[in-house]
């Protein structure tokens, strides 16, 4: 048997649980099933733990046993296709959204999306070059390259904050009903910052990060708030935010 076929068959047997799919083995003191099970245990354990490291808030919410079961179900349909183990799980939030056993936790997929964004931010460089965004001739912003804006369908940021603070009272008061939450995530040293933004500030920043010009970004903000209120929110939550540096200080944005 050619090596490529042997390796495909063994990889398939490990992931599928079908020992009969293994290539021919030499006889030995260890039964084939026990030997294959060592590799299967190593692979599944490493993948489930990789997901647990990327999605700690999901793990804390549902508990280890449920997480392990859900993660194993994910591995079965989305085995890793990248060599970098820390990058595994990009599709886990969408899987959770459709996972029948998690249907009673409709916010869980958004919690996973926030966990993933935090993990992605933490994998980005902290210091070093920033993303420079020229808004117009007078204003330019320097933003961390780890900065991202998420649009969530539930208050996943409040759930994460409540669990991190171990604040049962705050957790009990969270509105778990569907709602749009715009959340900025960026890396600060060894941690990731998570900050809820108002709709105009969030839409403005999201548009800027996608490469929109200032007029387009402002139009997005003005679509959800009157211009004076939108501008006030942008000033307070973007220009004065901890993550932003204004590199030209003649700040004038016309209301259009």
């Amino acid at each position, binding site marked *: 048997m050619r*090596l490529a076929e042997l390796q495909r068959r063994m990889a398939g047997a*490990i992931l599928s649980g079908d020992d009969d799919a293994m*290539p021919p083995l030499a006889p030995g003191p*260890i039964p084939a099933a026990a030997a294959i099970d060592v*590799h299967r245990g190593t*692979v599944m354990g490493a993948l489930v733990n990789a997901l647990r490291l990327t999605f700690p808030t999901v793990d804390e919410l549902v508990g280890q046993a449920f997480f392990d079961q859900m993660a194993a179900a994910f591995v079965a349909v989305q085995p890793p296709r990248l*060599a*970098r*183990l820390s990058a595994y799980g990009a599709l886990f939030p969408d899987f959770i959204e459709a996972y029948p056993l998690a249907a009673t936790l409709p916010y869980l997929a958004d919690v996973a999306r926030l966990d993933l964004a935090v993990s992605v931010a933490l994998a980005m460089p902290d210091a070093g070059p920033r993303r420079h965004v020229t808004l117009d001739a007078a204003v330019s912003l320097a933003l961390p390259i780890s900065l991202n804006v998420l649009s969530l369908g539930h208050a996943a940021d409040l759930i994460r904050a409540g669990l991190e603070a171990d604040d049962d009272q705050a957790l009990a008061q969270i509105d778990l009903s569907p709602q749009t939450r715009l959340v900025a995530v960026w890396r600060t040293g060894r941690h990731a910052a998570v900050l809820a933004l108002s709709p105009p500030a969030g839409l403005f920043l999201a548009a800027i990060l996608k490469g929109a010009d200032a007029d387009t970004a402002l139009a997005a903000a003005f679509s959800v708030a009157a211009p004076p209120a939108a501008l006030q929110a942008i000033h307070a939550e973007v220009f004065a935010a901890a993550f932003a540096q204004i590199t030209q200080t003649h700040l004038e944005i016309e209301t259009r």
Partner: protein
Amino acid sequence: MHATGLSLGSADGLDDEHLADIAELCRRIEPGLVSDHLSWSAAGGLHLPDLLPLPYSEEALAVVARNVDQVQTALGRQILIENPSIYLAFADSDLSEAGFLGELVRVSGCGVLLDINNVVVTAGNLGEAPADRLAALLDHVPAAAIGEIHLAGHAIRLLDDGTPLRIDDHGSPVGPETWSLFETVIRRLGPRPTLIEWDTDIPAFDVLHAEAATAQSILDQAAWEPTHATG
């Protein structure tokens, strides 16, 4: 710098992006030694986080030699290849592990990272005497090519029929047989950079320190008795 995911035995070749990441890390930290395993983890576009065994065949030797050459070219340096812990053997193997590693050293110019715990685990699982398996490795691999040694403990699970299955879990003290083989190796080769791997169920620092001190005493003894082979 000890890699686990280059998948040097993959018939499909190496992941160029991952190799570039490893090369960049190597440039940044300038490690004294760079190593990975005689194993594979990627096939058919899937990546399994494990050190999966190879059949020791001429085709596999050509594949590993090609991949090792690609890594050494990308890194601009020699790498060391570690003998893995093995739980099963393929019917298609027609070389010994020792013969495979020795030939790999000859054709690729790589070195060897000799994991003595893996020798004990593999020998136990394949029904061989650890001392014989180690002797074969030392006979086939030039002494000068062995650039580093790993030590570790392993778990033993008794199967239903009482057969011991040895599992390389790095979660216990180095076993007496491994220490004994380490002394044999050091007496024959002389001191080598030695690492004790204990990364699950990590004990108190004084336990780890005592393990390191035991290894150091064996290395120190060899340093005072330079009767080892040099070639």
